[in-house]
């Protein structure tokens, strides 16, 4: 019998959550999630709306703290270090573990300043031009914007804005990029560009991506994690494995029902 939750104990783990639970006020949102993310993997988080995918994603870089009255229990380690440790600065963590959201959210600044923002906060002043160019190149948008770096980041198309946001995340050289439905607001061509980019980036960074699009998860990721809300209205991780398992021959009947469109 295949274990419904894959483990990578002999591999280099970038992120590892153990028995992680999250409460918003008195409401338990996610319970007892244990998941290992190996280095340079692309991991999809899938599941019906409200199952806690984004909540889990936001725990990895303490983004949940920005939501008042959020409590996280259990352990979340980034390269073996407790992310929620008393001596850990959440801003440091967010530089190491970047994030891209569903709707592109460039700052109302120039394209250049959007990308230069993180490095400047980090105190980098020399060499900014090189960092900006390199980040835009890595995000596969350089050729489209190189002649208008001083134009507003809000003046480009949605697909370009999303790649600009990815460039902004890459500018501080993160280890991990968390993506919350990064292509759901984009047309098929921009989606294709983002998917190609994600595969390309996985050479250097680890990517955890929340997606509602199961075909997208099968296309781009190495592993998929399935979350589901039970009778108790609390989100649980029910299955985590290779895409061959999750989308080809799931262990958990609830995964089968979800990926074949029978629930959700």
């Amino acid at each position: 019998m295949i274990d419904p939750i894959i483990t990578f104990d002999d591999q280099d783990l970038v992120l590892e959550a153990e028995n992680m639970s999250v409460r918003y006020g008195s409401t338990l949102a996610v319970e007892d999630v244990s998941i290992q993310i190996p280095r340079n993997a692309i991991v999809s988080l899938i599941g019906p709306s409200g199952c806690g995918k984004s909540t889990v994603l936001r725990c990895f870089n303490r983004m949940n703290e920005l939501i008042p009255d959020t409590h996280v229990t259990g352990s979340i380690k980034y390269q073996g270090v407790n992310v929620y440790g008393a001596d850990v600065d959440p801003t440091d963590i967010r530089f190491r573990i970047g994030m891209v959201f569903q709707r592109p959210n460039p700052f109302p600044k120039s394209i250049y300043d959007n990308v230069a923002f993180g490095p400047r906060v980090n105190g980098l002043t020399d060499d900014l031009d090189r960092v900006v160019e390199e980040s835009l190149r890595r995000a596969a948008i350089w050729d489209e914007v190189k002649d208008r770096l001083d134009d507003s980041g809000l003046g480009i198309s949605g697909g370009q804005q999303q790649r600009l946001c990815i460039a902004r995340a890459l500018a501080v050289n993160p280890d991990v990029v968390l993506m919350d439905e990064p292509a759901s607001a984009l047309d098929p061509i921009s989606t294709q560009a983002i998917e190609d980019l994600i595969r390309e980036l996985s050479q250097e960074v680890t990517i955890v991506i929340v997606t509602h699009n199961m075909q997208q998860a099968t296309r781009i990721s190495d592993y998929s994690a399935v979350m589901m809300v039970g009778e108790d209205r609390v989100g649980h991780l029910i299955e985590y494995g290779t895409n061959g398992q999750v989308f080809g021959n799931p262990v958990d009947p609830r995964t089968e029902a979800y990926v074949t469109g029978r629930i959700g």
Partner: protein
Amino acid sequence: MPNEQLDYSLAHLEAEIVLLGGLVENAIFKTIRALRNRDLELSREVIEEDDRIDDLETKIQNECVEQIRRQAPLAADLRRIIGMMFIANELERMGDYAEGIAKVSINMGHEAPLKELEDIPKMADLAVSMMKRSIDAMTTSDRDESARIALEIENDDDEVDRLYAKVQNDIFTLVEDDRERAVRGTYLMWAAHNVERVADRATNIAERAIFMSTGVIVSGNADAQAAVLG
């Protein structure tokens, strides 16, 4: 929340496979009857009717492609559609074997067969029974039952192979005694070979049925056993 459109299409495809199996069964029994009774008219009918089998196979294949395009199915749905595409193809090839036997029979003309037909009809009965059960293995929703039927079919295939070897030996002996019999012997050998291939295709269908229910691609008896026990 059932996926009604896909469920309907899968059920419809399954019914068409059963229908295709029926056409193939009919073709094999008819071609053997024609061979035994030296009924050349009936043999010609088998050849003509093979078009219906080919057309239905094409229809099933097109519907499978259409459902993959529309529904982008995953997990068990994907396995069922892929499995049915293969199975339709296996059945179509069985139809070709029936047609092959009909052509042999026509080539024999009104000459009597080299020997009385005993083992070839026995092989055909078993092969058709294997084919029908392999479709049962495909349609059942109980994966243990499907695996059990598949194993049984693998074993029956050994019996068909045994009968085929016996037919070959009998023909060799007769031809050795009198070289003039070589041509008539060859006709029967062709016919027996075609029936033996029908049985092989039935085991392929059973293996596809195991894939559809378990996701494991198997080949041969040991594999099938492992899939059932594992």
